[in-house]
């Protein structure tokens, strides 16, 4: 058994190494470099460096050394846990990530919890009242919602909820320069800012969880133990949640871990719309200014999370399979 496990670990290690290498070369493959910029967006100003200045900066950031040498340096730093110094943001990449990651992780985790919880409940209820009017309405609206692209939903929410009705703040992670009397007021303010991004991401994921939970509950309901439960005269709420849900929730859980990869992609769009201080805006900015060090750092973080999540999903799926079959 452990020969198999070492093989698996070796597999994951190799994948990780390849991803690290890709992370190093992809940014550098992108045309242009962090210092040459001859143009800027309308109304904006950009400092145009002379050739000499560009050379000096390249020397400063060690980009004049041959690519192989830079790669070895990059690996060495990585082992020491030092992700390098961001060219554009003039800050340690680690500290940038330390400040920005919690924001993104917060809205991602919150929206995953909300969408999976709501999706499962709605899916189970919709399966319980199968082919009733409620089920049909829920089904069509959920299929529709799951197709609306996240960025469209974001814009919609921004302009109606924040703009027209002023229910929520327009942007940012927390209101600036205000005097908070108590700690909980800070949290409330942060939550208040987080509601719209979380709502957008949840709606984007809600349809998916609803459909999975519905089809999984439908298959569970055809099983004999559900008939046993009904036979035992238990209340229908208990049958649905205690007996049904405990079985139908398992595929939803694996889906949660698997969808983490795609949700990061959507987070990039959402954060740009709400100007939310997560790594989404960071990633887009980093790519636009070709800040190689920063891009490497972000993608490493994303790659690690996605890999671990897939790994956990595989484990759960094996555990789930062996027990249920």
């Amino acid at each position: 058994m452990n020969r198999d496990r070492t093989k698996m670990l070796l597999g994951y290690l190799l994948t990780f190494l390849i991803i690290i290498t890709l992370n190093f070369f992809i940014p550098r493959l992108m045309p242009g470099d962090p210092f040459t910029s001859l143009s800027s967006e309308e109304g904006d100003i950009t400092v145009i460096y002379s050739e000499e200045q560009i050379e000096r900066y390249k020397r400063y950031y060690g980009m004049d050394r041959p690519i192989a040498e830079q790669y070895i340096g990059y690996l060495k730093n990585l082992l020491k846990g030092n992700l390098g110094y961001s060219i554009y943001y003039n800050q340690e990449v680690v500290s940038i990530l330390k400040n920005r990651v919690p924001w993104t992780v917060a809205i991602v985790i919150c929206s995953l919890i909300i969408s999976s919880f709501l999706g499962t409940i709605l899916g189970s209820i919709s399966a319980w009242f199968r082919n009733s009017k409620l089920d049909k309405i829920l089904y069509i609206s959920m299929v529709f919602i799951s197709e609306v692209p996240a960025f469209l939903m974001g814009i919609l929410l921004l302009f109606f909820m924040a703009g027209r009705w002023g229910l929520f703040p327009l942007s940012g992670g927390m209101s600036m320069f205000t005097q908070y009397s108590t700690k909980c007021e800070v949290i409330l303010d942060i939550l208040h800012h987080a509601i719209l991004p979380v709502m957008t991401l949840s709606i984007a994921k809600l349809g998916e969880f609803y459909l999975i939970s519905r089809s999984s509950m439908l298959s569970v309901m055809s099983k004999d133990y559900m008939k046993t439960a009904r036979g035992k005269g238990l209340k229908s709420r208990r049958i649905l949640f205690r007996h049904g849900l405990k079985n139908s929730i398992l595929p939803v859980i694996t889906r949660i871990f698997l969808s983490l990869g795609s949700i990061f992609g959507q987070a990039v769009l959402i954060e740009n719309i709400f100007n939310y201080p997560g790594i989404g805006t960071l990633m887009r900015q980093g790519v636009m200014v070709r800040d190689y060090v920063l891009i490497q750092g972000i993608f490493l973080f994303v790659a690690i999370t996605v890999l671990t999540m897939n790994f956990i999903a595989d484990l759960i799926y094996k555990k789930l399979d062996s027990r249920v079959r």
Partner: protein
Amino acid sequence: MDMKGDFMGKPLLSVKNLSIEYEGASERTLAVDDVSFSLNRGECLGIIGESGSGKTSIAMAIMGILPSSAHVKGSIMYDDVNIQCLSEGERNMYRWGEIAVVFQNSLDVLNPVLTVHEQIYECIIEHTSLYKGEADRRVENLLELVGLDPQVSEHYPHHLSGGMRQKVLIAMALSCNPKILIVDEPTSSLDPWAKDEIIHLLKELQRQNNFAMIVISHEIHIISQLADRLQVMYSGCIMERGYTEDILQTPMHSYTRGFINSSPYINPYKDLWGIPSEAYSSSIRKGCPFYNRCYQRLELCSEKKPELSYVATEREIACNRGGIITILEAQDIDKTYEFNGNEILACKGCNIHIRSGETVVLMGESGSGKTTLATIISGVLEADSGQVQFLGKRVEGNNFTSQMGGIQIVFQDPFSSINEFLTVEEAIVEPLTITGIVEKDSRRHMVKLALKDVQLPYDDGFLARRCYTLSGGQRQRVALARSLIMQPKLLIADEVCSMLDPSTQANILRLLKGLQNAKGFSMLYITHDVAIAQKIADRLYVMHEGSISEENLLDIR
């Protein structure tokens, strides 16, 4: 079960005119067709029948957990409360509180993600007022009650073996001391040792707790050990109902007899014969459900649906012809021969009756009057006194041997039963030519069919062969073909195989039994060989010096 006792007072559960229809995607199937029965306190009612006969649907209807696609008509009275029209909430109180079910044992019957303890515990909490501590103890001693180690409660269902799972189901069912326990196929998936264990457990538990029980199964030997009364079902209707031993002894409905015959446990020596053809899925149809597989069916049977009615004390049958009809009834037959001065009493007051589709064996040493009685029955020989009734009409001379669907006889000596100078065709077609019932041109075709039935070649070459070129076995088959061409209702086979070598004997016997099972005629088989008798006989008569007595098949060794 010896506990017959009298069931005073009104029945605990009475089901009246219950019909269940499943609405499929394209058509509606009738699973249960107007069934009524009742169950008294402490009684055990067995419901037996092939799969798809609606027995499980009845159980589910009583519990009210039929799938949404089912439409239920009729009433289910429990303690004279019609639980059929109760609200879900009220019905829940009856479920498990009053009536509990031991579900059919399958991999999924217990929830895979909940422990055994929890699945039993939740019933107790739901239906009784016990608190957590008491409920836990109740679960422990329930498991001990069914002979399981209490540790099992922490396991998950898929850790248990089939037998253990069955015990857990029983423990779960008894958790709220139900008044009625419905047991659905308790032993079908178990090995023989586990089967016995479960049966004794159920009997013991019923004795202790005195709950009424409905046992549903398709294994007749299991149900007969448990049930006081038996109810045989076939595609949604009750065919026969009565005390278990009476039904096992003398099944009155042809389906019940067929069902019992196909169980090796009831009579271990007999050959196994299933009921021919298949039960087609019964969408809405009129007439008797067993019509297409019954051999004594009439035109009426396809029109009028038989009502369940009493044919004897505590015995009901649903058959337009009152169950299996007696084809032949011979009463006080006496026959004496004058033989160079002294009288030989061939038959003294012989009484014999043969029911439709039965194989009755007449056994006795040679000279005990077997052949005499047989020839009297066929009308060929006149009896001194007493009379023979065939299908209710007196047998006189050859009135029944000369008509279709009458009586035919096949004799012992193959060489003398056929005129060897005739061709095979002429030999077989003789009865038709004599009686002239069938027109000329289709006779040849009927001969070929008869030859095909008796597994002889039926090409023109063989038809034209002279009988003297045939072997004993072939001649006996030709004789058989000749008698079968008249499509008899009763075939008398007088020592047909004793003259043949063993392998031909076995083939002829199998052929005979096969034809009987396929065509449904009754057979009076005369032999002196005990083993053959046990092999093929439904009932046995033994003759000794002219007097006849019916013996039990099992103990004639």
